[in-house]
């Protein structure tokens, strides 16, 4: 009896669940829009939670910020066949260098003059006048003027808020004069900071040190504008700090860009729609369209064709499924999937600037301590021959075969760096003669008459960083040295723990370590060393600090970024005042000296001075590009010679675009990518796209 009634009950329940389902099936419509609408579906593993331009931290945050804000200046395409870029003035109508006419400001704001120059020598590079666009407005219609900018900068540098992004304006190349003092509370007069208003639509920006006009424009591409009312309303005290919740939800965001945030559900979805108050839109057939102010390939083209952007939180597998069913407009295949899609028409490859390398703590006492605790005979790392042997015994092309999408690297700054990008877009650092010469010198590759390689380019392209016979010889030499100095006993095994990753070790990491051990074993044959094993350790919160602190003898990590301004990049290895250096115990960059060849002269400085000499107030910061290039190349070569850091590989990312939309150009350019969302063109509007998918049987194929 009961059994039957239970049965009926459960059946009824099932029916109750199915009924609304059927109702929904009929009433459900697709997620995209209809005719004339162009929706860009993208995804991310985590949604940004804080897109306040003063405090954003991760890429997900800056993605949101990018849609709801418009910077003063942007970069886009002038000529896509030749790869010529152009500066685009967005919120700024113009930016001019007015140093000559405003020398008084230099004294007033106590700027730093370059070494060896006097006030009378300065004619440019300190004071810039920005004329603001008059039609710029917030999404609620209020107009934007100079007061908003001054207010925003004042908040950004507010000593009680300690904003995360303030360092861009008080300590980097475009640092505002007097900002550092204001930020650290040494003075509370904002008038002493070099940003002031000339009239309602003009502001002047005084930099602390010399900066080239193009680099200043580049710094203007980061927005700092905030909406005062919401910013103030969201302030509260937490601990000893003042924080604001500006830019954390749809209600606390005010957009000044082409899109506005129409809704965001944390950890789930963010939706952006066109911002009708944006100055770039005009009405056409009842829709908002926009055309570029500037000429692209000779004509003004349609820009920001996308009418709606949806960012979903999806995991890897779901993203792939969604992409193949036409629900996503772009997808990033993982390294494992790349082999299937490598011939695809829709695959776009970018390289990244991050070069993975091994870095060491070579302090003898630290190593001895580690040997007593968790390593065995890691004292061998103090020998330069050993480290050089380590570098030469790694077959980098085999190493990168362990994981997809990595390419071998032999130097610190990889092929994405440009030393004079704004004046010469082909000025690739890695391909320059100066840099190539240094690397050939490093790996001992000769070229010219009577040698295997006739030209420098030939010699450079033959470098693989792999020289097994030299490696073996060096190993033997290292063993002899170490045994002679009593630090190591022949034949003993060596075990060194490597601070490998922040998260848990993945299969890829294990593979890489196995390969490294294999290479070491091959090199150590016949050298007198016992078995050498590297052990990778994961789940380390901050391995970059752990190695110099003496917790690990070797670390595995990367530096990168600033591809257009490599002159500061070596400071991360040599300037302990500005950066916490990962390598330790090796040398003291503040006192050890280095002699380099500058335009025929032999000049000696400390390492720290050299690394700072090319930028800011350094001696050569206003020298011509070739001089700076030569110094940079020599400095990089000299540092690599010490073998405190061994570069291994760098990564590439690949993105697949759906058939729904096309990039403006197929030729990648380091300045503007493929054209970005500004110039993205659609082949189908939402309605046509839905029917296209249906025609293909609901599953698309991209290989």
């Amino acid at each position: 009896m009961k059994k039957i009634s239970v049965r009926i009950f459960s059946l009824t329940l099932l029916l109750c669940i199915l009924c609304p389902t059927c109702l929904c099936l009929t009433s459900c419509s697709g997620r995209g829009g209809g005719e004339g609408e162009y929706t860009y579906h993208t995804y991310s593993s985590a949604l940004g939670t804080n897109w306040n331009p003063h405090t954003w931290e991760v890429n997900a945050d800056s993605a949101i910020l990018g849609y709801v804000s418009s910077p003063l200046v942007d970069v886009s395409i002038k000529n896509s066949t030749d790869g010529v870029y152009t500066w685009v003035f967005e919120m700024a109508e113009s930016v001019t260098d007015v140093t000559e006419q405003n020398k008084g400001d230099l004294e007033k704001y106590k700027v730093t003059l370059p070494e060896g120059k006097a006030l009378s020598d300065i004619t440019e590079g300190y004071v810039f006048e920005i004329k603001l666009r008059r039609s710029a407005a917030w999404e609620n219609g209020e107009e934007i003027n100079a007061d908003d900018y001054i207010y925003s900068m004042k908040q950004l540098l507010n000593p009680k808020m300690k904003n995360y992004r303030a360092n861009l304006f008080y300590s980097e190349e475009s640092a505002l004069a007097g900002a550092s003092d204001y930020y650290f509370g040494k003075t509370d007069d904002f008038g002493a900071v070099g940003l002031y208003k000339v009239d309602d639509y003009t502001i002047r920006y005084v930099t602390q040190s010399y900066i080239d006009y193009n680099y200043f424009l580049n710094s203007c591409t980061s927005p700092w504008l905030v909406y005062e009312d919401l910013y103030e309303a969201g302030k509260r005290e937490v601990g000893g700090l003042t924080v604001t919740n500006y830019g954390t939800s749809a209600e606390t965001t005010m957009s000044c860009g082409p899109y506005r945030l129409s809704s965001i559900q944390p950890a789930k979805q963010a939706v952006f729609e066109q911002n009708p108050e944006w100055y770039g839109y005009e009405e056409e057939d009842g829709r908002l369209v926009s055309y570029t102010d500037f000429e692209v390939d000779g004509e003004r083209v349609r820009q920001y064709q996308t009418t709606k952007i949806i960012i979903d939180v999806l995991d890897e597998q779901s993203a792939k499924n969604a992409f193949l069913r036409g629900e996503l407009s772009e997808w990033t295949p993982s390294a494992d999937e790349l082999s299937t899609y490598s011939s695809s028409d829709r695959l776009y490859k970018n390289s990244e600037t991050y070069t993975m390398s091994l870095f060491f703590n070579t302090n003898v006492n630290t190593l001895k301590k580690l040997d007593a605790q968790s390593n065995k005979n890691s004292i061998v790392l103090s020998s330069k021959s050993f480290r050089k042997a380590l570098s030469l015994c790694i077959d980098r092309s085999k190493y990168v075969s362990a994981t997809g999408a990595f390419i071998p690297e032999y130097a610190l700054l990889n092929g994405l760096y440009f030393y004079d990008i704004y004046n010469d877009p082909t000025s690739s650092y890695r391909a320059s003669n100066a840099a190539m010469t240094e690397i050939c010198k490093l790996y001992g590759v000769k070229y010219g008459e009577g040698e295997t390689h006739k030209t420098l380019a030939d010699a450079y392209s033959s470098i693989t960083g792999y020289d097994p016979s030299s490696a073996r010889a060096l190993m033997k030499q290292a063993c002899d040295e170490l045994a002679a100095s009593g630090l190591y006993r022949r034949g003993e095994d060596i075990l060194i723990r490597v601070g490998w990753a922040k998260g848990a070790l993945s299969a890829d990491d294990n593979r890489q370590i196995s390969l490294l051990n294999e290479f070491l074993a091959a090199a150590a044959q016949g050298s007198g060393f016992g078995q050498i094993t590297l052990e990778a350790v994961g789940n380390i919160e901050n391995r970059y600090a752990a190695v110099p602190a003496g917790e690990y003898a070797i670390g595995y990590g990367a530096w990168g970024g600033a591809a257009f301004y490599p002159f500061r990049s070596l400071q991360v290895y040599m300037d302990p005042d500005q950066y916490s250096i990962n390598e330790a115990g090796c040398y003291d960059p503040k006192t050890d000296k280095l002699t380099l060849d500058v335009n025929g002269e032999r000049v000696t400085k400390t390492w720290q001075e050299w690394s700072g000499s090319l930028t800011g107030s350094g001696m050569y910061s206003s020298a011509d590009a070739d001089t700076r290039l030569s110094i940079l190349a020599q400095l990089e070569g000299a540092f690599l010679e010490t073998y405190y850091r061994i570069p291994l590989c760098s990564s590439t990312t690949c993105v697949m675009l759906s058939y729904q939309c096309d990039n403006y150009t197929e030729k990648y350019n380091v300045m503007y990518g493929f054209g970005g969302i500004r110039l993205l063109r659609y082949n189908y509007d939402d309605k046509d796209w839905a029917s296209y998918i249906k025609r293909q049987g609901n599953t698309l194929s991209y290989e």
Partner: protein
Amino acid sequence: MIKYILKRLILMLFTLFVVITLCFMLIRALPSSPPEGSSLAQSQMILERWEALGYNKPLLVQFGIYLKNIFTRFDFGTSWKISKTQPALELLVGRLTPTVLVNLYALLLSIPVGIALGILAAIKKNKWQDHLISTLVMFFVSVPSYIYAFLVQYFLFFKLGWFPQTIYSLSDAGGWFTGKMLYSMALPVLALSFGQIAGLCRFTRAELTEALTSDYMLLARAKGLTRAHATTRHALKNAMVPILPMIISSFIGILGGSLVIESIFSIPGVGQLYVQSVQQRDYDVFMLNSIFYTLTGLLAGIVVDISYGFIDPRIKMGER
């Protein structure tokens, strides 16, 4: 009875306190240093923030501040990593709805189906229905839940397109309780309920079998009751005794175990928050989450114990 309930409540609070202390000590004792900035200036700034929030004070002092905040201001701390400057309580409450909904639906689906199947299997013991159900149950219990999730997603979404892959966002569905949201939750509910149905079915079958073979059943048959009558009046009631606690504990179990399901179907729920807070060392959110799970577990325990007393008069707690 009332005295007993009061005693249990007080003990629950005590347990809660001990658990909070344990979790707090364990997670704050982890070697953790302030994150590195990309330049020395930034690192300096981060250190100052760290200091200003009191993370450098001794452990007990930190604990004291934490408790004080809870009792005086109901302030469970702020989230610093997952959602900047948002109060942890607000963050958790915002994530409760989807988790509870999905679990509730899964439970509503699995209880009747599971019990019904279990009864069927027990009654028709060793006949073909029993074998079929037992085999299916074996199969469903032994495959990990995320494999179902993948399979369900693959076949029902990718190949057939009947259901959406992830649950709809609020703006797509228009609210948590609409029909569209229910429709989009079909896949995770299905994935969750397989295991539950199997577990319930197996348990019911076991208990009912044991009840069916006991002496009073023999007596009932001897007295002349029909098989069905004897089963419903005697065996079923006895067999149901341990099932109610099992249902309650399985609800708690789903709450805890749906972490994987939540990440696969993009459900912005409590489980996902939990894993994130552990990975990113967002202390306050982690503590609040642990308190939440502990509290639900303890409440469930009390309810179970009390209900035991009601359902089975033989078992009186606390007696020799």
